[in-house]
């Protein structure tokens, strides 16, 4: 049984949106692309509210990005100046908005795959002629990022529960503490990775050069049409933008 759209079609759509996100520099164009992505997600039954939650998680990063952009870009009308240094200009605001929107588009694009599980993604990559060891490894790597972050947060809590007031510790010692915390997070992640590797070998991963697949979805005409439409739309947007 095949689902529509096929995972490969979704991968192509993700690729199209990320290309646009990276190629476009104008905040208005990026906003339009974001709107398009959200509409497409909604059409697939994926709520745009989830993007909001993801964006919230990265708000610290955004702030840094916005500040960096607006401080380093002094083109256009100047709004705020201090001793000859431009602090805020229309060019800076535009650059900051573009940077934030760019990340939003990329995060939204990734959400197209949120309804697909690892097995489906690996199958799709293999169908695109990516060696399956590589496909598994890439996806496992991606899977370990949140695990690693979680580990780091737990270690941070654990160390404070041992009576260490991170807010009151001088900087030099703080750095030492952070290196302490990194240790269990890295060790934990490595130990877990090794466990997964052993578990996979124990289940005969890579024991034979060829493997069979429980599902080998086929591309339907609808998929080809959707892919063609996505590529054509992307090309059209780029052509208009660069005209």
């Amino acid at each position: 049984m095949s689902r529509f759209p096929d995972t490969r079609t979704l991968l192509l759509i993700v690729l199209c949106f990320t290309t646009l996100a990276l190629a476009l520099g104008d905040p208005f164009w990026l906003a339009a692309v974001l709107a398009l992505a959200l509409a497409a997600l909604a059409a697939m039954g994926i709520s745009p509210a989830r993007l909001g939650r993801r964006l919230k998680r990265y708000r610290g990063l955004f702030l840094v990005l916005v500040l960096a952009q607006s401080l380093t870009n002094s083109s256009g009308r100047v709004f705020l100046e201090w001793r000859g240094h431009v602090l805020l200009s229309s060019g800076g605001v535009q650059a900051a908005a573009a940077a934030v929107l760019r990340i939003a588009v990329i995060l939204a694009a990734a959400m197209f795959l949120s309804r697909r599980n690892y097995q489906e993604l690996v199958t799709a990559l293999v169908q695109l002629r990516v060696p399956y060891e590589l496909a598994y490894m890439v996806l496992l790597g991606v899977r370990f990022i949140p695990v690693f972050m979680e580990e780091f947060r737990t270690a941070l809590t654990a160390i404070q529960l041992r009576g260490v007031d991170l807010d009151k510790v001088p900087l030099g010692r703080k750095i030492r503490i952070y290196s302490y915390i990194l240790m269990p997070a890295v060790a934990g992640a490595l130990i877990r990775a090794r466990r997964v590797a052993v578990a996979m070998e124990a289940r005969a991963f890579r024991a034979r050069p060829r493997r069979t697949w429980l599902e080998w979805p086929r591309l339907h005409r609808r998929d080809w049409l959707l892919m063609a439409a996505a590529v054509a739309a992307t090309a059209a947007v780029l052509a208009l933008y660069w005209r």
Partner: protein
Amino acid sequence: MSAFIDLEQVWFSWPSGREVLRGVDLTLQRNDTLALMGSNGSGKTTLGKLIMGLLQPTAGKVCLDGRPVQEYSLAERGRRVGYVFQNPERQFFAASVADEIGFALGFRGFSPAEVEERVAELLAFFELEQYAQAFPFHLSHGEKQRLALAAVMALEPEFIILDEPSTGLDWARKNKLIKALEGIRERGVGYIIISHDHEFCRRLCRSAVTLKGGRLT
């Protein structure tokens, strides 16, 4: 005397919508010893984390020594209430067993000689001397369990929450742990033991409650 740990109509659900606690009331004095029982997934660990303020209740109040637990910094909470994680691995961060136990002492103004003495004492008590320089992650489960306890005991907290401390311990080690907790109790330090081990709880705790359907009985 006012209560040391005081939970009032505490409700808790996970963001996924799963409701774990439905109106839990619990009042404990500083020297109380309580066994918290309940089947797998009944929310015992969740309740422990709520008391430590690691999770925030959806509704209700959690107070520590008369003040909302969130008003204390993590470090203050940790110094007053020792918490032994269900998965002891989660609380290790030092490169050696001895460091793991001595870690917090160094930050609390003990001299290196004092730290060394205290660490040696705890290592001996928990029979971990031969692993003093070993990497905590490489210990066996029972050894990790003992190390986690030793590290928390090093802080000399006023109260301790132990999440399934007896799992993975053999009979002799368990007896030893019982002796240790009895000693702690005699010093007027109270504890909550989260456990399925009836025999263990019966020997150590004056009272017992069971978590069922999100309520204490």
